[in-house]
């Protein structure tokens, strides 16, 4: 038997394996980018979304015992209430923009990831 069929067979098998793994992984891992205005009219389907907006500092509540951080995010047109289960970041009080990842519910966004963009005198790291 020549080498060629073995090589081609192996390659097909390898690609199928990767495809299978990727397909399995994709379902739970996909995070869709939406704007706040788009999110307001989105149906609630358990899909993970990523949203960027301005933190309205006068809406911030924080319970360190849980810990649970709550605030509203705005894009200038609409607002979206956010709950984030985690420690309030050091620089949250100065945050202008925040990027959040989570699942949309009846009461707003349940976020599990929070990234801040702060005015900094330092160049990006």
């Amino acid at each position, binding site marked *: 038997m020549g080498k060629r069929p073995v090589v081609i067979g192996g390659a097909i098998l390898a690609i199928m394996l990767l495809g299978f793994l*990727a397909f399995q992984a994709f379902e739970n*891992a996909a995070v869709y980018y939406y704007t706040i205005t788009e999110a307001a009219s989105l149906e609630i389907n358990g899909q993970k979304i990523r949203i960027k907006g301005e933190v309205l500092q006068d809406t911030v509540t924080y319970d*360190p015992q849980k810990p649970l951080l709550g605030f509203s995010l705005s894009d200038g047109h609409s607002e979206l209430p956010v709950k984030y289960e985690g*420690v309030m970041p050091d*620089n949250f009080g100065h945050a202008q923009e925040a990027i959040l*990842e989570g699942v949309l519910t009846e009461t707003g966004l349940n976020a599990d990831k929070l990234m801040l963009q702060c005015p900094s005198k330092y160049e*990006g790291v």
Partner: protein
Amino acid sequence: MSIFGSALLWLTFFSGLGAILLGIWALAKQRRDLLGYSRRLSLISVWSVVGAAGLMLLAFLTDDFSLAYVARHSCRSLPLVYKISAFWAGQAGSLLLWNLILALSLGHIHGGQKYRADDLDIKVSILPNAVRLLFNIILLFLSQPFAPADPIPRDGAGLNPMLQSLGMVIHPPILFVGFSCCLIPIATAVAELLWNPGRREWMKQARPWALSAWGMLTLGIVTGGLWAYTELGWGGYWAWDPVENASLFPWLTLSAFLHALLLPDGFVGKGMLSYCLAGLTSLLVIFGTYLTRSGVLDSVHAFSNERMGNVFLGALVIMAFFIIGLACYRRKHLLGTRNSQRTTDGKTALLAASIVLFVLIFAGVFLGTVFPLISHVFLEREVLLDESFFSTISLPLFISLFVLMGAHTSRKRASLVIRVLVGLLAGAISYLATGGHMLGSISFAAAAWALAGQIMELLGTLLGNRDRRRIGAIASHLGLILMLIGITGSSVFVDEIYQVVEPGDTLEFGGYVLEYTGLQVQWGIDRYKVETELTIGRGGKVRGTLSSSKTFFEANDQPHTDVGIFTTPVEDLYLNLAGWQGQTAHLHIKRLALVSWIWAGAAVVLLGVLVLLRGDRNARST
């Protein structure tokens, strides 16, 4: 200072360009007399970038804030070690550092007797010099390290406190040494295919560079993880961030390349496979820089600059066309003769399978990383893939690699039985200990199976011929197994609590008794620090302390958190002072198993690579 620095950068640019053009012309016309001039120009280019970097260092050490770059990244009160590391804290400085390190490896090639023979050094230097040209263009036009400050400030802005950490002192230079070495294997291939197509030696020349690159990348990736773990305050060391992945890409393809070099010479397509992997590695190094600099993907590390991104992308396309074109042009040379050896033994098949796995992991992680760009084009909405994608796709493949690693040892029945038993036992124990964590148990089983195999190999070699290369290879694999154990342990056995405590409170966590006594405030000239220290007790005895603090700076709104880590060989306790009201503190405490095995494993890997390089050198000289 500004003028001297810029002049040196122009000098390195023109002499580098001259070295390439003169070198190519002289090689084409077979004018050996001119080759000496090309070498000299290349060396001038090396020395002038050394001079430019020296000037930059001098500017940092003497607080010369007439340079905008120094004023932005340093200040008078900064400790000496961070004045040095502030050199690569920003965009322009880190590109200058990379340029410097690549130049130094070129200097090494020009200086080596082995390379001087037959003017190989000039042939090999063409490609790295071309990459340096790219950096020089950026340093001259897009990100100028020697731009003057206007007006000259009395003191600099200082270094971001997050970068004031030992990890950030050593992580970038190590990674750049790794990246620079990554470019040499393909450079040796290009030199041979263009000017000595009859010879088949490039793979031998490439091996020490590939090994060094691999060792340095391993160390660079691990120090980056160590920095994230000790500095970023979320209690992890790897997050599948695009920039982290960018350093993993060349590591994966380089691992595949190193295994491809071990294939027997008669293996059909060995040359082509090695060439493609070396080429891919070099492209990925440039791509990684593109990813970091262009800001096309949201990342914690991004220095976004769109124009610079386009320059990198352009260079990447040119380089890819060149590498692919050369492979097509010299395909006969790379594919070897048709009547090569046809029988394949078991060990060769295992090697080939490991190469396939490395490439698959690379493909999966790569597609996942650039998926937001792909989906932007095809789905008209950006879709990001979070960490779970990367774990799901890569962990089974990584574990399979360790299964192969254990299989690629002695064929004796007794050895096989021992390995299988050890693996099954480890799997069963961890299945019970984790409460049925399937992937974790399989991972521990694979690690134990590979560990047993490698230890028996090591003993066999130590009792037998004591071949340094064999010992080095086994040691670096042993180090990787230790890292797998650490990674699995710290992913499977994690728990954490958030606790609000009053002074005098004790809390029990994971068999430890932690006592909180209150907060202390320390005042500095331009900062104040709020700190807490917990006493760690276990079994009625005090085992140590755990302290975490937040520092507030006068000049900056953003406080800096220092986390506390209490390390034992079995587990780490991790404390983050999350906040407080009066003396009431909000603590985040985390317990991760076996983290220190990752760092220890990396040290063993590195030791193995050093022994291997030493063994290679001895084998060549005899």
